[in-house]
C-alpha cells in the first residue's frame, strides 16, 4: 500500500502502520510534505521539510534498532502558527511577526516531539487568532476544502483545512472563544477545547490568557484523543496549568453513552439555522438511540456570552499584544521621529481587526470605563459559570450546535464585525466558564458539514470523547471533501 493511503488512515492508523513497519516515517512525511507544498487552500504558511525528514529518519532508525516508539511516532502533524517551534518561523499570520523565528519550543511542541510526532508545517490563521473566518490573516484567507468559496472558520482555519483536505492526519489549533470548535464544525472534523489548565499555554502566543487553550483537530474522536493525550499535563512554566489526572481518552471513545444524560438548552437552539437545527436534532436522536437520555436544561446567562467575551478577551489581548513594540523582535517601522513615533508606526501594521480589538480592550480597561465594562463583564462571566454548575446537577454534558450556520461565504461578514462576533454565540459560554468542549460532525446540511458541540464538567474530557465516539458510530464517517489521496503522486518521491 502506498504512503498516501497510510497518511489517509488518520492519526492512529498512521502511527500503527509505522509501528508495524507497513510504512516508513520517511515515506509518510514525504507524502505529507508533497501535499502540503501543493496546498490549494492557503492553509499552510510554512513547510518544515528538512527538519521533518530528519526526524522521520530518526524514527525509522529507532524502529530498526528495536527501540520503543512514541504514540505518535512518524505521524505528520501541523501546528497553528501561534505555537512556538524552535528554529521555525512563527508569525501568528501577522506582519508584526513576519520573519520571526521562534528560539524556543512551546510546551505542546516539546510534548509532540517526545511522542514522536513529525512537525511538518505551520498553518494559516486569523491574525493573532482574532477572527472567526480566517479572513484576518495578513497572508490571505484560507479556503474551505468543502467549498473554496466559503470560510473554513476561524481562527484555526488553516489547521482545520489542512486536516479536512487530508494534508495531515492531525493538527493543533488554539481555542479562545471557539477557534478550534467552529472551524471543526465548518470543515467536518473532530476538535476539542480542553478544560482551561489541562494543556500548558507556555509557548502559545497569547490572545486572551484566561481563555486560551490548545486543542487537537482530527478526523475522528480517537485520533483526537491520541493527540490530546500527548499534549495534556501539568507544566511548571504556566501558573494556570492544572495538576489533573489523565484518563484513557482513546478507550473512552468506544465506551458508549448508555446512561449518559445529555442536557439540551432548547431556548438557545432557536438561534440556529433550520438546516443546522435539523442536524442537531438528528444527532440528539442518535445519542438517545445509543442509550443516552435527553434532559432539558437552561443556561439563562449564556446569551450574554458575546458581550462578556468581546470585552474580556480584547481587554486581555490589548495587554498581551503590547509586547509587539519593535524593540526586541519582529517588525520595526521607523519613519523618523523618536521612540513614540516608532511604537506607533510599528503597531500601525496590525490588521484592522486586531487594531479594533486592541482599541476595544484598551477602552474597556481605561480610566473611567473599567467598572462599567471590564469589571461588569467579569461578573456576568461568573453568572455564566454558575449556569453550567446548575445544569450539571441534572446532566453530564450540554449539547448545542457548534455554530448557528454552516460555513458562510468568504467576504460575507468581513465588513460587519458585530455579526461575525454574534456567530460565536454557542462556543463562547464554555470558554468563559473554562469548561471542556468538543465539536463533532453532525452530518451534512446542503452538502456542508455541521457540528454538534458538547460541553462537559471541568476535567471530564473522557465523557465528551465517549459521546463523540458514539455519534461517529451512529453516523459513520463523512465523505471526503477532496478526491481520495489528493496529490498522492506528489508524495511518491518520499515513498520507499
Amino acid at each position, binding site marked *: 500500500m502506498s504512503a498516501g493511503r497510510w497518511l489517509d488512515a488518520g492519526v492512529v492508523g498512521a502511527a500503527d502502520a509505522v509501528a508495524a513497519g507497513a510504512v516508513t516515517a520517511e515515506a509518510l512525511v514525504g507524502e505529507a510534505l508533497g501535499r502540503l507544498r501543493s496546498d490549494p487552500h492557503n492553509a499552510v504558511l510554512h513547510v518544515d521539510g528538512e527538519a521533518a525528514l530528519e526526524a522521520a529518519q530518526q524514527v525509522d532508525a529507532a524502529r530498526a534498532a528495536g527501540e520503543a516508539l512514541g504514540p505518535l511516532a512518524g505521524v505528520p502533524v501541523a501546528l497553528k502558527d501561534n505555537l512556538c517551534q524552535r528554529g521555525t518561523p512563527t508569525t501568528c499570520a501577522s506582519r508584526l511577526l513576519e520573519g*520571526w523565528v521562534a528560539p524556543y519550543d512551546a510546551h505542546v511542541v516539546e510534548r509532540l516531539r517526545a511522542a514522536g510526532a513529525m512537525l511538518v508545517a505551520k498553518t494559516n490563521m486569523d491574525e493573532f487568532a482574532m477572527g472567526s473566518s480566517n479572513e484576518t490573516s495578513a497572508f490571505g484567507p484560507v479556503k474551505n476544502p468543502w467549498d473554496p468559496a466559503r470560510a473554513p472558520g476561524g481562527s484555526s482555519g488553516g489547521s482545520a483545512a489542512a486536516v479536512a483536505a487530508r494534508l495531515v492526519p492531525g493538527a493543533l489549533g488554539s481555542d479562545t472563544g471557539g477557534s478550534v470548535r467552529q472551524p471543526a464544525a465548518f470543515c467536518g472534523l473532530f476538535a476539542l477545547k480542553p478544560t482551561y489548565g489541562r494543556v500548558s499555554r507556555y509557548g502559545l502566543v497569547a490572545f486572551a490568557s484566561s481563555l486560551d487553550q490548545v486543542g487537537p483537530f482530527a478526523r475522528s474522536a480517537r485520533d483526537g484523543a491520541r493527540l490530546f493525550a500527548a499534549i495534556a499535563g501539568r507544566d511548571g512554566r504556566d501558573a494556570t496549568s492544572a495538576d489533573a489526572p489523565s484518563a484513557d481518552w482513546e478507550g473512552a471513545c468506544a465506551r458508549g453513552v448508555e446512561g449518559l444524560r445529555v442536557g439540551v438548552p432548547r431556548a438557545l437552539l432557536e438561534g440556529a439555522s433550520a438546516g443546522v437545527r435539523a442536524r442537531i436534532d438528528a444527532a440528539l436522536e442518535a445519542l438517545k438511540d445509543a442509550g443516552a437520555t435527553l434532559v432539558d436544561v437552561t443556561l439563562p446567562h449564556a446569551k450574554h456570552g458575546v458581550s462578556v467575551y468581546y470585552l474580556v478577551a480584547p481587554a486581555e489581548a490589548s495587554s498581551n499584544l503590547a509586547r509587539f513594540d519593535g524593540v526586541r523582535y519582529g517588525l520595526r517601522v521607523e519613519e523618523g521621529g523618536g521612540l513614540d513615533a516608532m511604537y506607533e508606526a510599528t503597531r500601525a501594521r496590525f490588521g484592522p481587526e486586531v487594531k479594533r480589538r486592541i482599541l476595544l480592550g484598551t477602552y474597556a480597561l481605561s480610566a473611567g470605563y473599567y467598572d462599567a465594562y471590564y469589571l461588569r463583564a467579569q461578573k456576568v462571566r461568573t453568572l455564566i459559570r454558575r449556569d453550567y454548575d446548575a445544569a450539571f446537577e441534572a446532566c453530564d454534558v450540554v449539547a448545542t450546535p457548534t455554530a448557528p450556520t454552516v460555513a458562510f461565504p468568504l467576504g460575507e461578514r468581513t465588513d460587519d464585525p458585530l455579526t461575525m462576533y454574534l456567530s460565536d454565540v454557542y462556543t463562547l459560554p464554555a470558554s468563559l466558564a473554562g469548561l471542556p468542549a468538543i465539536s463533532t460532525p453532525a452530518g451534512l446540511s446542503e452538502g456542508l458539514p455541521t457540528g454538534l458541540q458538547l460541553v462537559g464538567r471541568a476535567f471530564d474530557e473522557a465523557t465528551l470523547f465517549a459521546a463523540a465516539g458514539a455519534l461517529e458510530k451512529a453516523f459513520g464517517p463523512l465523505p471526503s471533501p477532496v478526491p481520495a489521496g489528493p496529490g498522492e503522486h506528489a508524495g511518491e518521491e518520499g515513498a520507499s
Partner: protein
Amino acid sequence: MSAWEAVVGLEVHAQLRTRTKLFCACPNEFGAPPNTHVCPVCLGLPGALPAPNEAAIDLALRAALALGGEVRERSVFARKSYFYPDLAKGYQISQFALPIIEGGAVPMALEGEARSAALTRIHLEEDAAKNLHVQGETVVDFNRAGTPLIEIVGEPVLRSGAEAEAYLRALREVLVFIGVNDGNLEEGSFRCDANVSIRPKGEERLGTRVELKNINSFRFVRKAIDHEVARQAALRESGGEVVQETRTWDERQERTVAMRGKEEAHDYRYFPDPDLPPLVVDAARLARAEETLPELPAAMRARWVETLGLTAQDAGVLAAHPAIAAYFEAVATGLGEAAGLKPAKAGKKAANFVMAEVLRETATEGVEARFPAAAPEVAALLALVEDGTINGKIAKEVFAKMVATGEPPKTIVEREGLAQVTDTAAIEAVVREVLAANPKQVEQYRGGKTAVLGFFVGQVMKATRGQANPKAVNEILRALLAEG
C-alpha cells in the same frame, strides 16, 4: 521659624535577595555582561509566561514580619501598562488593589528618641530593564528585567529631610539584617522616591505634591527634600502655585530640577494578571517565615547591652553591618566557651579586640564582609590571653602574624616562643640581673623615687622579649627592692 510644614512620604524599591528572578529561572545577579541573564520570559517573547518564585514571596513575608505589616492570605498580581523600552511586555507585573502586605511601620530613632513611621503597604513587583545611553541611542540591557522587588510605601508622616534620611537608614538596616535586601544604593538595589508637599502649619489638607525621583544616596535624599521644601515655600510665598510634577536632584546645581514634562496623564489600566492566579499565603508558609526570621538589629543591640556587657555605642558600631554583627557574636561566644568566661565578660573583651584590631582590616561589600581572620581563630587568640599564655601586647603581635600567614594563634605562639614566662624563679633571676646592672636607679628607688619602677619593668620585659608576666614582674621587683 517657617510657617510651612513639610509633608513627606517615601516609596522605597528594594530588590529581593533571591537566586532567580521573580517570574523566571534566570539568575538574579548584578554586574553580568549585557543581556546574558535573559530568557523568553524576562525578554517578553511571544508565548512566554510568568511562574512566581517562592523565595521572593518568603522574603516579602520576612519584611512583613520585621515591619509589623499584615499579610493578605490571597493577594493578586496586576498588570500596569505603559510603553517604555525597559519594559519587555508593555506592562509591569505588580500588585495593585490587593497587595501582599498592608500596614506596618519603620522603627527609627530621631535625635536619640525612638519613633516609628507608619507604612501604607508593601507589594511585590518585577524590576524593569536598564536603559544605557550609547552614542545618541538608547540600548536596553534586560539582565535586571524581572528582578524581584518589594515596594514599601510609607505614609506621608515625615516632616523634614533629616527625618526622611533617618527613616531610610532604619528601613535599610532592617531589610539588610533580615537578609531581604543588600542595601546597595549605588547599584540601585535599594532605591527611593519621595513625595513632597508643604502646607501651612496647623492645616490638615495636603498640598500639591511633587515626586522626587532617582535620589541615590542618603545625603542626597536629605538635601533634595530640604531644598524642595524650601523651593515650594518660596514659590507659595511669592504668590505662586506648586505644580504636580516629577523632579530629580541635581547635585551639581544643588537644587531639584523638573524631569521632562509628560504629554499626557498616565492611565496605567491596571487589571488582574490573567496569567497569574491569586497568590495564596497559607498559615504554614507564614509560620515558616516566622521561624526563620533573623533577630532584628534593634533587638540585637539591646541584647548585647544587657547580656554581653557592651555600651550602647559599641553595640551600635558592631551592629552596623550584619556580617560584622555575626562575626562579633561568634568571637564572643567562642571566647566564652574556650575560656569559661561569663557572657558579659567575654562580650566586652571580644568587642574591644574586634573594634580595636579586626575592623581596621575588614572590608565590606554590600551584605558581605571580608575579615582578616576567622572568628574562631580570634576567639582562640583571646582565650590564650585569658589563660595567661600570652599577654595583651603579644596578642596584637600574634594577630598581625595570623593575618599575614593565616596560621592559627597557637601555632604562631609555639613556633616563635611567645608564651608568657610565669615561672617566678626565672623572672626573679632576670630581675636580680637587672637590679645588679643598674645600681644607680636602685639607689634612687630606695631614696623614695619609686617612679623608676617603670624603668625596671621595661628592662625586665626587654630582657624577656616581652614574655614575662607583667603582674609577676611587678611583684618580684617590689619585693626585691624592699629587701635591699
